């Protein structure tokens, strides 16, 4: 199975919406790759810089509640995918965004608020690895290391294993 995890970037705010992740004006692009430079372009977050190296290196996004609310655009998932991000960890997700992640064979993992806070407290340079055999994530940062268990719905896991919903549906329906 594909490996999930890597350097993480923290977007420390609730309710980050799809227009902030990828603005509507880029929805006229007809390839996923064309979205790459516009990741999180309109994000309103103090101290966040969409052009920083941290974002270029990130494989994991760590964020708060109701991530990906707003429009149904799968572009919000693709813009992460083409930038090398494979996992989003949040307190909670908007339904369509979460479904789009699994439909693309990517991971949307929910942790409790205090667990997210403890990971954020690990410092600026955090790396998060996901183990899909044990359903655990391990976060390493300047001040230590933490391991948390997460739950993954069995159908969502099947989608990740299949490489997405299209492959799964084509086989089963």
């Amino acid at each position, binding site marked *: 199975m594909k490996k999930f995890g890597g350097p993480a970037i923290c977007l420390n705010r609730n309710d980050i919406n799809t227009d902030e992740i990828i603005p509507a004006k880029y929805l006229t692009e007809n390839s996923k790759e064309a979205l790459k430079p516009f990741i999180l372009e309109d994000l309103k977050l103090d101290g966040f810089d969409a052009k920083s190296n941290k974002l270029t290196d990130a494989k994991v996004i760590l964020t708060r509640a109701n991530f990906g609310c*707003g429009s149904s655009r799968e572009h919000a998932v693709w813009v992460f995918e083409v930038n090398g991000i494979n996992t989003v960890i949040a307190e909670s997700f908007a339904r369509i965004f979460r479904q789009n992640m699994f439909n693309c064979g990517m991971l949307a993992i929910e942790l409790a608020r205090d667990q997210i806070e403890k990971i954020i407290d690990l410092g600026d340079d955090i790396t998060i690895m996901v183990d899909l055999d044990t359903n655990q994530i391990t976060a390493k940062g300047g001040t230590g290391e933490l391991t948390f268990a997460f739950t993954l719905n069995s159908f969502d896991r099947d989608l990740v294993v299949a490489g997405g919903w299209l492959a799964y549906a084509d086989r089963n329906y």
Partner: protein
Amino acid sequence: MGMTIAQKIFAAHTRDNPSADNVVLDLDVVMCHEITTPIAINDLVARGMDRVFDPDKIKVVIDHVTPSKDTKTATQAKILRDWAKRNGIKDFFDIGANGVCHALFPEKGFIRPGYTVIMGDSHTCTHGAFGAFAAGIGTTDLEVGILKGVCSFRMPDSLLVNLTGSLPDGTSAKDVILKIIKELTVNGATDLVMEFRGPVIDAMSMESRMTLCNMAIEAGGTCGICLPDRVTAEYLWPFIKDQYVTLDDAIADFHKWHSDADAHYLKEFKLDVSNLVPQVTFGFKPDEVKDVTEMEGTLVDQVYIGSCTNGRIEDLRQAARIINGRKLADSVRGILSPATPAVYNQALAEGILQQFMAAGFCVTNPTCGACLGMSNGVLAPDEVCASTTNRNFNGRMGKGGMVHLMSPLSAAAAAVAGRITDPRQYLK
């Protein structure tokens, strides 16, 4: 244990249960527009899967940017047009016949009680007004929907929204839903079907119910839903009259979708609307809502009346109550986009378009227009729009612009005053 309307619709459409929490549903309608569908079509073509499960169950419209504004949007329209043609999709609405998807498809009678409906558009929840389960989905779900006629969902829990009292003059469904979102917050209904019930719903037209269900997604809801009744049957009668002998037969048949008295709801929310004041958003989230009286005096540069939320004839009639015989304030640009050709024609016949034009409004063709800042009506940085649309996200109507969501009455009042103001003063 009884069942909710959503659970009944799920039970009647279950193709598969891939896990205890998930269900794969058979779809009655797959709707498509030119922003989210072309990329799905390109992918299906690239995979050698350029097929559709049933051309009669796929409904297609070009509505977001129409007429096309540049090469990219013209290409999106062309991909959709060519695809519809080669796959034998008859219900395809192009320039001259097109309008905002969530206003146009109900008008055509495509949505019926008990249906399952998906579209690559978050405001698909609008169609729940007919007692259907209708949900926005992403591109991959759309591809599978087009190809296989199925979509996966988690088992639906419902939030019962019980609306009591009667709406005071000067308020409408828009004020009700803004108030609900304010109380629930932007994720108060996440993963839940919002079932709207109570005497306020019973008294509402289909147009108002659509306005209400349209914004369920702004509280995170999977779908807004109303129980199908006489109002639903009357609206649909031209399309269903061959199926039933009398209107009462249709109403009785619709009853099979009604939630049982002992159905289980995960949450319940009650609101008495009798003292409701017009509601307006103030920030970049749809739950940042205040009474219009607290927003009094906020200057606006543009007023936009239209969209799938409030671009129907009822909305235009409401706004015209204030616009008729008055002028736009000198500092304000006014844009009216009737949501569909039928709305446009009706407004023309009733003299409403002429009233708007006499007031100084620009009347556009039916389109999403300024709502998502992709074609016309884009704001300059720091400009402010009083809008009847459903989303006030940062950058939604143009980078650096501010959108205040409100009812058609409140938008019309802002148009003539040049600032946000209480519409009720114009109704005396």
